[in-house]
């Protein structure tokens, strides 16, 4: 975000593309988000997530509408939209793919995964395939290092990846087959995820497991050894996991 020219994803919002799907219903939804907060400008981040869900990117119309609702200038909205990496200034794909290449994931195989995905999709990072199916991003550490190397699809976890698994995943998504996050729900689209980030519950909280295997390694070992943490857990001593 430092403004040097080697960041292809930085730069301003594309003001030449005026297309929009923001209608009165979307405006009502955006307005409703404001009501959750003690001061209305606090709703700006969720609102921009919602704009993306509708327009596939931060659109000029989206910026205008946010500014009108919050009673701030379009420049103030654009200033925020261009600061955060999750806000896309060009249309994202139906599925947004992230490959973690921060130090640990890179070393564990993330660099090789990224090469696989780029080759398979025929695009490089910060690009979208011509058919609009996939966009690709190199992500920074996604708080899942114990599942490395990690990929994200529409910001849902795809843990312990290999190049083979990545190719299969992309084939399945392209063919419209049922795909589940390794620790989450069935994958639908990036736009659907952006609505959840806007604060709109999609009712899928009950999908997926409580936790992935690495998250439970300590609990499993403690049960095996009869180690407990809380006084009322004594009765569980020696119990199984």
């Amino acid at each position: 975000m430092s403004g040097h020219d080697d960041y292809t994803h930085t730069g301003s919002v594309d003001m030449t593309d005026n297309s929009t799907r923001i209608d009165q219903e979307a405006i009502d939804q955006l307005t409703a988000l404001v009501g959750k907060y003690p001061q209305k400008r606090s709703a700006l981040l969720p609102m921009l997530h919602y704009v993306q869900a509708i327009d596939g990117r931060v659109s000029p119309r989206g910026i205008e509408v946010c500014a009108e609702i919050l009673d701030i200038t379009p420049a103030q909205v654009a200033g925020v939209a261009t600061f955060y990496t999750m806000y896309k200034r060009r249309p994202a794909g139906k599925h947004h793919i992230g490959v973690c290449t921060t130090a640990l994931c890179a070393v564990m195989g993330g660099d090789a995964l990224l090469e696989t995905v780029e080759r398979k999709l025929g695009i490089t990072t910060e690009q979208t395939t011509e058919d609009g199916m996939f966009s690709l991003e190199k992500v920074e550490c996604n708080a899942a290092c114990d599942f490395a190397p990690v990929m994200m699809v529409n910001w849902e976890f795809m843990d312990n990846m290999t190049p083979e698994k990545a190719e299969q995943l992309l084939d399945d998504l392209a063919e419209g087959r049922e795909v589940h996050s390794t620790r989450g729900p069935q994958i639908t689209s990036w736009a659907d995820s952006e609505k959840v980030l806007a604060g709109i519950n999609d009712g899928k909280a009950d999908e997926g497991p409580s936790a992935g295997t690495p998250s439970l390694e300590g609990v499993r070992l403690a049960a095996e050894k009869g180690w407990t943490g809380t006084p009322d857990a004594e009765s569980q001593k020696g119990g199984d996991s």
Partner: protein
Amino acid sequence: MTATLAPVLTRNWGTDRSWTLEEYKAQGGYEALSKAFAMKPEEVISEVKDSGLRGRGGAGFPTGMKWSFVPQDNPKPKYLVVNGDESEPGTCKDIPLLMASPHTLIEGVIISAYAINAHTAFIYVRGEVVHPIRRMQRAIEEAYEAGLLGKNILGSGFDLDVIVHAGAGAYICGEETALLNSLEGLRGQPRLRPPFPAVAGLYQSPTVVNNVESIASVPSIIKYGKDWFAGMGTEKSQGFTIYSLSGHVRRPGQYEAPFGITMRQLLTMAGGIRTGHELKFFTPGGSSTPILTADHLDTVMDFESLAGLGTMLGTKAMQVFDDTTSVIRTTLRWVEFYKHESCGKCTPCREGTWWLVQLLTKLEAGQGEEGDVDKLLNVADTITGKSFCPLVEGAVACVTSAVKYFREEFEIGYTTPAWEHLPYEKSALFTIADKEVRS
């Protein structure tokens, strides 16, 4: 000393539907809340203060003391903000907590808000993790339906609203004043302190910002008492915490233990380094904490012992690298991370991380020149301690600690590319590493 684990926060993570209110209550959830409501707010603060709980987000500041800084005579509303912007490389404890047991956090939020007299609380979660956010949203709905949030909670007369707020991709928002700006709908850039958030935080009102794990620890302290909590751990690092091990270990994962455990003991619990390899280096608390090596395996993993070695406990995120790993490569990737995440506000950070990346890129490619390692240290020394927030200190810590222990390897970068010196494919899990390592 024999080391054991002590699952408290992680205890229910493996149970079926652990994220639901029904399951959380079945395991004794929300019992601490009733106990807290029978206490005065200042008694809750004292209990947490006396337990010795220190912030789990990196700095280790005493949580109860932070609460006591809130000026109760200030007529403005007080706010509680939970920092769930977990983005420090290596750190991966809060996200599984939000996903497996969101009610532990909500119970902690209610008790903590009651203690500081806040009637609105925010849970700020990084945006790149949809499922934990979804689970949090649902848990809050359940809590409202059950009368655990909203007006007159459980007949206590205490009102509280809780809002989950998704970030939008910015590591810097883990810094508390940047987080507050982000929550106000601004660019997430740090503020100059003082004033501290306790006095002028969100909307210039008194605000407490605490890490997810810190707040999630509160119900257990109230339920089992300060003496139970303080009875675990070491003299100045009391209680238990979640250690996150990742990298070239056989069983990476979350290990919750009393402070006092050593790196060797944790590594043993995680099954040791993968077959046929040895430990080369590790971060004790995320990439912003200076690295350590096999010489430091018997270090006690608490705040004081690590400070004594010139590093930090940080977020207790141990990223473990074996002997196949190029230290130039990892250092460059970490510094690229800081360069990418620099908010651009302060020149030393914005430009300095850029210079560090350039020098390290040359060294990685074997195109370094005599004196580049000293130049690297010179740049690091020039940019440290000169910015609003400590982001650049993280970048500097990677570089200076790596050079301290592996200077010769950096000098090999004057002649030989890192990928020739230490072929990268040997570090990956799916090329050379045999599958049974992670079966």
